[in-house]
């Protein structure tokens, strides 16, 4: 049976934001450390390492996961999305990111990556969410700066924009949540 020894590092391959990547990992290496220090995707932040604060939330095969509660070896063969994969181009912001900026929905920005990731997943399931539903999704994250209200306002506005019919190719490009 496939058994990875504690004493060795093993090459783990997966797709990160659409591109193939690989990282050397002992079985105990956390996905947070693999992404941040193994690959250099430092946008995913580490706030508690026990699954409560949500700063490290990533998507694994489109489903939200706390990267601090995920082992790097569990990423083998998976499609991983992090905050670095949300904007349509390097010099642009996604609809949600732009709404966050307009609404001052971030201050220190440390928790923001995780919240953006959760909203990305949730709006795909529920394009027309209620404020309460958004509060419950954002409720899986701790933000110590904003008091949450601007985050909810930004998410509601972004969801409304994303529900509008796509008319031009530019819009299509930015339709990424």
């Amino acid at each position, binding site marked *: 049976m496939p058994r990875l020894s504690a004493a060795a590092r093993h090459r783990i391959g997966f797709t990160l934001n659409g591109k193939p990547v690989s990282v050397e990992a*002992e079985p*105990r*290496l956390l996905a947070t450390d693999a992404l*941040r220090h193994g690959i250099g*995707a*430092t*946008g*995913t*932040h*580490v*706030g*508690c*390492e*026990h699954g*409560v*604060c949500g*700063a490290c939330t990533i998507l694994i095969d489109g489903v939200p996961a706390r990267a601090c509660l995920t082992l790097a070896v569990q990423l083998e063969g998976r499609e991983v999305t*992090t*905050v*670095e994969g*949300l*904007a349509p181009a390097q010099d642009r*912001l996604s609809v949600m*990111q732009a709404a*966050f*900026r*307009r609404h*001052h929905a*971030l*201050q*220190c*920005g*440390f*928790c*923001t*990556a995780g919240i*953006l990731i959760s909203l990305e997943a949730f709006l795909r399931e529920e394009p027309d969410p209620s404020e309460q539903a*958004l*509060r*419950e999704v*954002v*409720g*899986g*994250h*701790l*933000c*110590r*700066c*904003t*008091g*949450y*209200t*601007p*985050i*909810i306002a930004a998410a509601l506005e972004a969801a409304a924009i994303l529900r509008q019919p796509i008319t031009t190719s530019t819009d299509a490009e930015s339709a990424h949540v």
Partner: protein
Amino acid sequence: MKAETILWTGQSVERVEDAALLTGRGRFIDDLGVRPGTLHAAILRSPHAHADILAVDATAAAAMPGVAAIVTGRDLARLTTPMVAGLKIAAENWPMAVERVRYVGEPVAIAIAETRYLAEDALDAVEVEYAPLKAVVDPMASLRPDAPVLHEKAGANLVSDRHFRYGDPEAAFAAADRTVSVKIAYPRNTGAPMETFGVVAEYDPHEDVYDILANFQGPFSIHTVLARALKVPGNRLRLRMPPESGGSFGVKQGVAPYAVLIGVAARITGRPVKWIEDRLEHLGAAVAATNRVTTLKAAVSADGRISALDWDQVEDCGAYPRAPEPATLYRMHGNMTGAYDIRHVAMRNRVVLTNKAPTGLVRGFGGPQVYFALERLMQRIAVELGLAPLDVIRRNLIPADAFPYRTATGALYDSGDYQQALELAVSGRLAELERRRDEARAAGRHYGIGFAAAVEPSVSNMGYITTVLTAEERRKAGPKNGAQATATISIDPVGSVSVHAASTPQGQGHRTVLAQVVADIFGLPHREVRVIADLDTGKDAWSIASGNYSSRFAAAVAGAAQLAATRLRDKLALIAARQLKVEPGQIGFAGGAVFAKGNPDKTIPFGRIAALSHWSPALLPEGVDQTIRETAFWTPPELTAPTEGDEINSSLCHGFIFDMAGVEVDPVSGKARIDRYVTMHDCGRVLHPGMVEGQIRGGFAQALGASFYEELAYAEDGAFLTGTFADYLLPTATETPDIEILHIETPSPFTPLGTKGVGEGNCMSTPVCLANAIADALNVAEINLPLTPAKLAALAARPEPPQPEASRSAAPVGRPGDRALRGEGEAKVAAAPEAIWAMLLDVDTLASIIPGCHGVQKLSDTHFKAEVTLGVGPVKGRYKAEIKLSDLDEPRGATLTGSVSGALGTGGGAGRVTLTPDGAGGTVIGYTYEAAVGGKVAAIGGRLLDGAAKAIIGQFFAALARKAAPGRPGVLARLRARLSGRRA
């Protein structure tokens, strides 16, 4: 001509910081690369609240793969000196324990290895031998003569006791119609920024230079403390801050001791060393706000006018009075009368030490503790005199025409119109709240209305902390005062403008606001001004007051930037006047151009004039040296040192807040629902409305946490109980309601931009406003934070239905606050008491019945040592155990005293075992026990402990029963362990 009056300042422009943060390009300390060869540190922390360190054996740990060194307190003491504190006492203030640990979580050793994982492996192998001492956690208990003394050199736990008197309080109390008082025990909480501490340190042995990167936030007076501790002059401690910091709320002042520890680790290993604090370390040992016991009395007239206050404050700074403490107790000294015109004040301030983590800066810094008492007092005056609470507030507010207003204790309030702010807030809204309250009450629900008025101080006077010293001590030490702020403006050879400020932002958006302020001076688009806010004490302008605290940015740092920019602009105007051949007074700056007012032909691009100093210095007019770089330092003249009479203008600016809340309490669940919350602010001129709103909302959310959810809790024996985010509860989006925010603006006459601070106010006003509402809803007088469901349900509860006889168990009940595990049980065993007795005293038998035992060593007939693996569910650890038998009453009973210690923590307990013949040749073994658990497992696995104790004790007796009657099937079935272990 373009109007000069269109200003960036005052607009909610999009923040320049945001795009990077939103796309994962932030540069927080752990996002920055390190030099090849950098090692990683992990810190071993004390499981004991108070113990002497007998020995630290790091031999095995140091020999582990990838481990470079294990650094202990002795190494630290060899290379550094204790850190100086704000108090002159004999206690040695080390950042890592040297001979004694004084709080759970205190650093004991540092493992330095190639990875953090290996460093943590090494920690598990460090053996520390402790001799536990009695601990004290309650500040009032620590004052008692029989309390264990933390620092024997200091002589007692009371390390400062000052009496103050302003006006004639005795006469005012004697003449008053009534005296009303409140007693408050304000709990410990903390800012809990989402990013924890981080330090990367290097040491150059040839130049004797420490180069330390840390997400420190100031005040940079601490730089002098660190340099002294590291035994280098200030110019050999280069302290650098990363571009981004993930929140602080005061707390990141507390990274300072770790700069010393990691600096020493780098020195010992000869390599760069990096340490990122983890959340367990942070909650247990980073920075706590002080807990404080306050008795506050007011002398009042029958109509509610207050003539005098009498404060008695007992401040708990934890185990070490770490700089800048006891500043929490003195930051509010000038504004102890709050928003009220009260001329007579008596005050006693005591500082005590207890076996808890050291305290420091936390948002609000002294304000929550003071205003909780003061505004509870206002409500109690109303209740006791039968007046409307709002009328009592109105009757005592400082009149609008009294500003600038000198308080009894020495503050100079800059500006305000408290009456206007209050009346605007209540207008229309209070009537609606009262209607909602009356409807709720008519339906039998518990609804209350609360108010709070608070003066929010900002821009601290560096001299206020010296109020803790007597006037004579201050004379000896020399006067301390001021609030030096600094900013630098540079113009490069193409004329573009850069700003640098020593403000060390942690998310507040300083770069955006500085760009707005400076762009306005030069008439540039704000996006063309580039701002750098990371600080390097080796290269950048700074002073002791630099940093991000006391809400000093908008009032002090933005003002310094405006000053520097104005100086440059005035010089540029001279250059432009000469070029355009007009009078300097005619020169204007707007739209990226410099022009002669009223003469559209005379216009030059800004860059041409701005770059002239680089390319053509010969063209500079007389009196203009250069326009390349301008550094402004600014300190307000109002911030003077304490007077002989202990009057202190502790802060430069004084904003005003008036809060009003409607709250309903569900008596069944004990949960409070905020129905309405209105917060009125006067923070002077507003530079960026979006950011001001963000500060208010964020402050409110933290205050909500302090009100209902957050407490850094300790057991009576000093065990720390809230080590994870599952026990230290921050409010989330589902708990945080929307609030209504209102403003008036009375610009400060003392600051360059008319601004005041706004970042901390709701942490001062909101907890007490909510408590007042709940006191009103439940009609109770005494109420302390956090207002947990259990507390509120108890206040609202009717008598409890009695326990039916049939289900009554004899479980012992503990005292409140005593978190010992207690239990009792009995087991029937098919062997005579004499046989059981022999087994309990036999090494081999014990080895076979102690759960998870790896072997017992007999030290005497009644004293055994053992190695055990204990576990419950998935939680498992290896421990050293010690067991003693005493009060032997052969073969009827004995007392068993045991202790265990291991990487997961410590445990200790005692139990009485009784052996009674059952009349059929067997024995009934009865036992009672009382145990306490400390260290990591208490902090993170509190809920597990009952189960663990029950399971382990149950296993012990089950094994004893099996051993006593091996051949008797069904004996286990007869094991009737009536375990009722509980945490009382």
